[in-house]
């Protein structure tokens, strides 16, 4: 069997349903096989979008996303998407063509050292120089991408390897002697952990993306209810614990709720679950939760004690460890007084906004929530749109919030929403965009129309790169250096692609426009003209302790 066929057969063995990819000179043999392969293939208009689509597909479904590009520029265009997936621990396999083995290192046409370039943004990568290694490599790539702390794996396949013949042998199992993730927590640590939890008076659960990745929402809810501890989530953790739950504090950190940040700062025990104490969460690190003991549960040992001192580390898969912990914890803790204090903060410092002249973006998010009853998948771009989407939509299911948390990639949301829609065709999928971000991958309108990927894009159009402008307003004396950005007529643009466009300039039109967008069987751009200099509040200035919030009602 030829290498290209072996690749396709291997993808089928891995139960891949869809590939997001773009053809080119060094992947012609693969594309020849794709011509009649039983695989869905989505052709984006830019390779970067292929990577984000594979990523969005993976985030929405929990399966491995697959993208494919040619050598050189095709591969380098994937890198932003690969780095995005790497930072958020998303399982992805990226396949790239490479110039033929005899030309590698010769500065051949469309040659780039892709394994070199992607070494620091992949969990692992491979250059397959012998067709006999191909099937095993693909099997390993999927195994590594999916297991342990997931991440992107790149497989670079020279064009001559795609053409070489060999017998197709699918390995029974994967044996990698240097790779053995720990799934179960150390029983001694679990015992210690249970003991410390039962004696805590002011515990807070701080849940991250690991809860979603490991599918531990049920266990998290059980734990929170059993020990009566309030739960705050990172951006990546949203959806891991229902926002509508009485114990939910919403998001913490730089744009977190005041009550979540106060709770963390006043707590005597932080139970960190699948989270990594990112600087956007901790603020000034030496002032972070001064009175709290810290339990840290994470599958990646290198996440533990990286940024903060940890009292009880537990290495393991969140779902397994929480299962162990629930067995070990006997009765409920005495936290009634603490819950009362937290409730007080919730009442005193609610998330709030004031209606101004133009439409409030927060109102749009509330309306989208009302209309979709929390059942939609919400993807976001990066910046103010992302934070408003995080703050004002109530996420009640895991995998319902899709956002580039770690890398903060503008242009991510639209293709990621498309990938999510491909993976979950029955879900209503929204991309919450800014007028800046949407222009970074706007060409994917064509892909949507062509493949009937009917996502709804809510553009929060303020004529600015809003988050950067907000920082300029607050910290650079309103010197709006190159953050005022123009765009096209989004309605006409959408129409020119064969999509639909709706413009909304008044608050009263918001609901109707959203209803219309949902009813249209096509991709829809809704161009919301929002308050131009609206800020995201509360906000913790960079380098401050997280209870030193400014703005808003905090």
């Amino acid at each position, binding site marked *: 069997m030829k290498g290209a066929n072996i690749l396709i057969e291997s993808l089928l063995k891995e139960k891949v349903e869809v590939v997001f990819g773009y053809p080119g000179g060094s992947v012609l043999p693969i594309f020849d096989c794709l011509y009649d392969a039983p695989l869905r293939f989505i052709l984006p208009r830019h390779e970067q979008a292929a990577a984000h689509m594979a990523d969005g597909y993976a985030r929405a479904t929990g399966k491995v996303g697959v993208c494919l590009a040619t050598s050189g520029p095709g591969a380098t265009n994937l890198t932003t998407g690969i780095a995005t997936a790497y930072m958020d621990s998303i399982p992805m396999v990226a396949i790239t063509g490479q110039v033929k083995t005899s030309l590698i290192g010769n500065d051949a046409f469309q040659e780039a050292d892709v394994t070199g370039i992607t*070494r620091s943004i992949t969990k692992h990568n491979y250059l397959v120089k012998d067709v006999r290694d191909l099937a095993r490599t693909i099997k390993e790539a999927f195994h590594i991408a999916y297991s342990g702390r997931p991440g992107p794996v790149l497989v670079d396949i020279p064009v001559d390897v795609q053409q070489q013949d060999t017998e197709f042998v699918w390995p029974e199992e994967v044996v990698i002697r*240097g790779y053995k993730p720990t799934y179960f927590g150390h029983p001694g640590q679990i015992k210690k952990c249970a003991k410390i939890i039962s004696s805590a008076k002011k515990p807070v659960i701080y849940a991250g993306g690991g809860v979603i990745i490991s599918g531990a929402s049920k266990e998290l809810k059980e734990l929170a209810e059993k020990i009566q501890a309030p739960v705050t989530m990172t951006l990546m953790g949203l959806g891991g614990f229902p926002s509508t739950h009485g114990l939910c504090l919403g998001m913490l950190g730089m744009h977190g709720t005041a009550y979540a940040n106060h709770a963390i700062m006043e707590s005597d025990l932080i139970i960190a679950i699948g989270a990594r104490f990112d600087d956007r969460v901790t603020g000034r690190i030496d002032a972070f939760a001064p009175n709290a003991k810290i339990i840290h549960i994470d599958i990646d*040992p290198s996440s533990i004690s990286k940024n903060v001192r940890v009292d009880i580390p537990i290495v393991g898969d969140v779902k397994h460890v929480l299962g162990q912990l629930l067995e070990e914890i006997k009765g409920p803790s005495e936290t009634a007084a603490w819950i009362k204090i937290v409730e007080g903060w919730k009442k005193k410092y609610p998330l709030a906004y004031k209606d101004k002249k133009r439409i409030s973006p927060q109102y749009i998010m509330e309306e989208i929530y009302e209309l979709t009853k929390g059942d939609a998948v919400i993807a976001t771009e990066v910046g103010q749109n992302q934070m408003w989407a995080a703050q004002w939509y109530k996420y009640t299911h895991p995998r319902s919030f899709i956002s580039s948390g770690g890398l903060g990639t503008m242009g991510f949301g639209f293709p990621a929403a498309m990938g999510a829609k491909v993976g979950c065709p029955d879900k209503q999928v929204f991309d919450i965009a800014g007028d800046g971000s949407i222009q970074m991958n706007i060409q994917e309108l064509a892909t949507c129309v062509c493949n009937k990927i009917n996502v709804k894009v809510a553009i929060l159009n303020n004529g600015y790169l809003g988050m950067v402008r907000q920082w300029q307003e607050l910290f650079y004396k309103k010197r709006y250096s190159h953050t005022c950005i123009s765009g096209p007529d989004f309605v006409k643009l959408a129409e020119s692609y064969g999509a639909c466009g709706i413009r909304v300039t008044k608050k009263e039109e918001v609901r109707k426009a959203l209803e219309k967008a949902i009813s249209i069987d096509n991709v829809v751009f809704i161009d919301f003209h929002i308050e131009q200099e609206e800020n995201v509040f509360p906000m913790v200035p960079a380098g401050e302790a997280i209870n030193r919030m400014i703005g808003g009602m905090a």
Partner: protein
Amino acid sequence: MRHTISVTVENKPGVLARVAGLFSARGYNIASLAVSETLDPTISYMTMVVEAQDERILEQIKKQLNKLIDVITITDFTKKEHVDRELVLLKVNYSLKDKAKIESILEKHAAKIVSHKADTAIIEAMGNQDQIKQLLSSLQQFGIQEMVRTGKLAIA
């Protein structure tokens, strides 16, 4: 503070780049690095001396190394009884009048002259870090023109 650690890795192309890349990407410093094949030709052995201000950084270095798929085992010699050696080649100014003096120093340090010309000698020396340091300071008086070192090797 300097720490000696060893890692066994898959003997594959690109593995050295992965290890070196990890150090540069995360801002860690390598003071020396020695790599060679082991008795098992599919495994390479790396001895590295790393600089870490505190225990936390050293822990991170080890954890990050462990995350590399191609890294098989890691040994930290910091608190472990071990033997370490380094090979040094020195080009030293050499004249008949200093011959006896140099030779007596070399004898004391189990070092030897491997070749010499009229005015320079190439000296081979082996030892642990202290021994090499002492030898260097003893030979300083004659003028050391060049020095190459393998980096530390360690085994426990």
